Structures are given as C-alpha cells and as structure tokens.
C-alpha cells in the first residue's frame, strides 16, 4: 500500500482542505516534487547539503549512564541535536529550499513555534540565496527570544503574530493568509508533517533520513533491529522521520509522546492524539483539539514546539491502525527529564525531546531486560535555558 494515496490520504486522514486560491500552487508543488523524487541530481544535491553543510549522519549514541537509572536495557539516542542549527528541522528546510529553486521562486515563508523551524528555514534560505519571512506568535517570540535573534542574524524577517493564542496555530494561519496573497512568487516551507497534501508526504520524505541512518547504525552497532523507538510528537515530523523507515519492520514498536501540559485533567495540554478527535484544520483531516462545536481549542505545553492543537495525518493513521502507541507526559515531568539528561549524559535536550525522555524515565523500568530502544533526541536545549530560568 502506498502512503499517502494519490489524493494525499493516509487511510482516512490527510487530504487537501484549503481555499481554491491555494489549490493550483499545491498541485504544482506536488508535480514538481513527484518529478524530482527519483531524480538523481536532485537527490545528490540534497545528500551533499546534508553531508557537507548539515553535518549528517548524526551519531547514534548509547547512553549508558541513564541506562543505570532505568534498568538492564540498551538506550540509544539519535543525536538530531547535533544536526546544524541544533534540531532535525534543517533536514526538511534544505529539501524544501531546493524545491523552491526548482519551482523558480525566490521567496520563502515559514511558521514557527519554538523557533527551531524558523531558524532552520532562515538558515536554508541564507545558504540557498532565498528571501525569508518567518511568522511567529507573539507569546512564542517572548519565550524563545534566542531563536528570534538567530533568525534575524541569518537575515530573515520575523513577523510577529498577535491573533488568537499568539502561538504556533496562529502563526500557521498568518502564514497561510500571507501565502494566499503571494502565492505566485513565494513558497511556503511548512515545518512539520501537517498541512494540506503534498506537505505531510514531502516533509516525511525529507525527514526520513533520520530513520534511514538510525536503521543502518543500529544494525551496525547491535546487529539487529531495535525493539522500540520513542519520539516526541507535536506536529510530528521528528517522530515520522524516525518511524517511517521502520514501518514494515513489524517487530519495532513505535511510541509517540505528546505534551500533557499542566495535566490532561486541567484541559491545558497538547495531547491531540490521546485526547482529541478527528477534524479539519490547516488543510488536512486529522486528530484535533476542538470543542463540541468544532471550534479549535488552544493547546498548552511548556515546549513551544509541541504547543499545537493538531497533528500530522500520518500519525492519525498510525494511531487508528495501531501501528504506533501515543502517550503523554506533563510539563513538570519533561522539565525534570531535561535536567536528568543534562546532568547524567552531558547533553542538554530540547524541552520537546525531553517529553520523549520523560516517558522513557517513567516507564523504562517495566521493559523486558535486554530491550534495545532508540530515542529520537530531536533537538538541543540551549534555547530553553532562559525560559526555565536556570541558574546553576
């Protein structure tokens, strides 16, 4: 079975729910991408950039110190924090940046929550000679000030978004509205496996380098496939990136970890798959946080990159077909895991990735001895030291 199908569906999820104005641009993007997907020159251009510019492959590191805290299992960290710009996001923006050039466009826009995708887009734009504007919620600009400074240094224009919850969801709305007015000369680099077809497909494809590398690395280091892969899920691009190349390896269990924020019972969370229901937002049919009348509810997470009331349609499909399990951890559990990894392994993880770590820390002792698992350390946490007010 091909996922997505030719209408952009993963099972019942996905599709192209956008105003007519954007349909021709999406179809054009789909055509360009389908023609390039198997083009050797395009693929080698991407590979060159990923190798010599981004610094890939990223290491697969066995974290023996935290194994001692958890039990007789083997824990491997896929070190996306060591990718250029400090997160997995650049894998996608370099790919879409090259697509922009192929589409003969000179301008790119992006939405950003934590600022990681904004920085990655600004970086790819600087590298490839594109003009870049990033939409960012006012609230996120405050809590991720470091990334705002980085984007500006990289030559991008950062456009504050004052509407709605002033976070990622509203940055997406603003970017879509801007794109509708500028679709002729501008490509919209969506930062996660969300949005209308073909975005969930092409972002997945560009991020699948994570799982492709991890698969080779674990076979080399362990001589076998892992039993489990754990990744945090906001929109879900780092998780799909590492899960997808293992999709047909049925023995490999996928665990996605969402943000439970202040706690599910407080209703201030971002556990879309765990506690939402299907609907249509930002161009695709997928799980959503919404009220009884189909109005979107504001999400909450201490991790700006997870603070989103939607999720990629491929995750909704993985959930409904039971290919993956989705769980959630609270802000407090994530912050505690942030400190834990920093002290124990000398790696400061992003608050987003700290959700995956917190789940491992909470449940890892129940795993069968000898279990081999990979946790996707999707980004580094320098950006999070200020909001947490860390002194020592």
């Amino acid at each position, binding site marked *: 079975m091909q996922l997505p199908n030719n*209408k952009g569906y993963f099972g019942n999820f996905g*599709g*192209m*729910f*956008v*105003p*007519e*104005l954007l*349909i*021709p*641009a999406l179809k054009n993007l789909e055509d360009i991408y389908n023609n390039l997907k198997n083009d050797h020159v395009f693929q080698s251009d991407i590979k060159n950039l990923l190798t010599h510019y981004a610094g890939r492959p990223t290491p697969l590191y066995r974290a023996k110190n935290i194994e001692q805290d958890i039990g007789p299992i083997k824990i491997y960290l896929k070190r996306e924090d060591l990718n250029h710009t400090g997160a997995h996001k650049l894998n996608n923006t370099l790919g879409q940046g090259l697509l922009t050039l192929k589409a003969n466009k000179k301008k790119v826009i992006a939405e950003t929550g934590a600022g990681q995708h904004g920085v990655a887009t600004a970086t790819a734009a600087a590298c490839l000679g594109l003009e870049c504007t990033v939409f960012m919620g006012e609230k996120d600009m405050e809590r991720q000030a470091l990334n705002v400074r980085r984007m500006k240094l990289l030559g991008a224009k950062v456009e504050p978004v004052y*509407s*709605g919850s002033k976070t990622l*969801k509203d940055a997406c*709305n603003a970017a*879509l*509205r801007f794109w*509708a*007015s*500028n*679709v*002729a000369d501008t490509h919209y680099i969506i930062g996660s496996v969300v949005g209308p077809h073909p975005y969930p497909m092409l972002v997945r494809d560009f991020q699948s380098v994570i799982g492709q590398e991890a698969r080779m690395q674990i076979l080399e280091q362990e001589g076998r496939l892992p039993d489990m892969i754990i990744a945090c899920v906001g929109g879900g691009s780092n998780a799909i990136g590492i899960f997808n190349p293992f999709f047909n390896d049925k023995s490999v269990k996928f665990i996605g970890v969402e943000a439970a924020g202040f706690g599910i019972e407080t209703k201030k969370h971002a556990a879309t798959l765990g506690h939402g229901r299907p*609907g*249509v*937002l*930002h*161009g695709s049919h997928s799980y*959503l946080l*919404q009220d*009884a*009348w*189909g*109005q*979107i509810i504001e999400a909450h997470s201490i991790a700006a990159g997870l603070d989103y009331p939607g999720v990629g349609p491929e995750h909704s499909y993985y959930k409904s077909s039971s290919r993956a399990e989705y769980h959630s951890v609270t802000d407090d559990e994530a912050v505690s895991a942030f400190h834990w990894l920093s002290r124990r392994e000398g790696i400061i993880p992003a608050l987003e990735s700290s959700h995956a770590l917190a789940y491992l820390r909470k449940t890892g002792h129940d795993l069968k001895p000898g279990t081999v698992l990979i946790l996707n350390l999707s980004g580094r946490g320098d950006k999070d030291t200020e909001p947490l007010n860390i002194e020592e």
Partner: protein
Amino acid sequence: MKITEVFNILKKQGKTAFIPFIMAGDPSMEVTIKSAIALERAGAHILEIGMPFSDPVADGPVIQAASERALANGINMDKILDGIIKLRQVLKIPIILMGYYNPILSIGVENFIKKAVNAGINGMIVADLSPEEGEEWSNKLKNAGIDPVFLITSFSGHKRWALIESFSAGMVYYVSYAGVTGGAVMPGEELLKALDEVRAAIKLPVVVGFGVREKKAVEILSPHCDGVVVGSAIINAINNGEDIEKYVKQLIDVN
C-alpha cells in the same frame, strides 16, 4: 425564493445582484436577524450569513474579529440555525451560509444538511472545501435541494472552470484578487477581462467578492458579473452602529 429564480428575474431586468455578507452572532443572533431584515429592505437580493470559525484562514482582520466577537458571545451552530428558522419566517430573499468545514464536520455532514434544510438555507459556501474534497459534499447538498457554491480564482485556470461549475449550483463565486477577505481594491482591467471570460465559458451566474467596499467598485463590476458580494465593509458598518439600511442604499442604486 431560490437563488436561480433571483438571477432569472434580475437578468430580465438587466440588473446585478447585490449580496451582503454578515456574521452570525456578531454581536448576537438578534442583531444578525435585525441586520438581515434591514438589508433586504435596503435592496439586497441574496444574503450571505457567515458561520464563525476559530481559525478562518481565508479571512482578513475584519471578518476574523467578527468571528472572534461572535464566538466570545457564545454562538454555535445550533443557535445560528435556530435563529435562521426565525429569520426565514420574515425574510424572502435566499440565504447562503458561508463558513469553514470543521464546524460542519463536527456535528456531522448529514445532520448539518438536515438542519440546514429545516432552517430554509438555499446555498452553502465552504471556504476550505475545493472540488478536490468537495464531491460528496456537493452531491449531498444537491440531493437535499441546497445549492453548493464553489469558488473560482484567477489561478484556477480554464480547465478547472468546468469542474467548479459542475460541482456548483445556483451560482459560482469569483474571488477578485489573490489574498484574504477585506482588502480594498478598485477593479482593474485584468479582473474585468477575467470575469468576461469566465462568464462566457460557464452557464451559472458569476458573483464577485473579496475587497468590494465602495459604490464606485460596485458600479465598475456590475456590467461584468451577475452579482457583487460586500462583506467586511458591511460588518464594519454594523459594528460601528451605523444605520445599515442607509449605508447599503448609498452603496447600490435601488430603483
């Protein structure tokens, strides 16, 4: 009255339809009903009523703010449709509901259509539903006797015109520029030429919307289309407490 009948009558009179847009529940359903009646009295031929959505990506600041006010005041789909049942008893002109797909999906498409039929809705525009996702929706509405109205833009291209027309009934809606609602653009030659081409190619009436706010724009557009939609300007007028009937009368010539 059905949408088609309105255009048949206007065609004989050599007139263009005036189609105002108001937001349901902004600031209350009572005001929406009162405004609707005033608009009919002022000479509106068809009325578009917006269903607020939390994330209206096709709309500019004025309609975004109207949606936020309506939602903050507790409007929901049931209250909108209940209000329209009352309105329908006094309003003769066709009513088109316009909104986004998720609130419809949330109460269930069949359930929504049943309620819309019961409320006397004549047409439906869903901003984030293009023909790519709209086939079943279009068929279900047509079967229920409600006209599905799809949008055409300058990017749609000749090939899509036929597709969009086949999915639509009553009329099609031409988006006057690339962008979101609420701009202020004086129609230029390019737009008028595009409208002439679309009208020559398809049989359904073609109405124009997005960015029409001045009497002059209505006058320029009228010979090139079958109807003109005015939204953000009217919502502003209601929000500023202006006499809506007087406001609309100065926008259009009522003979």
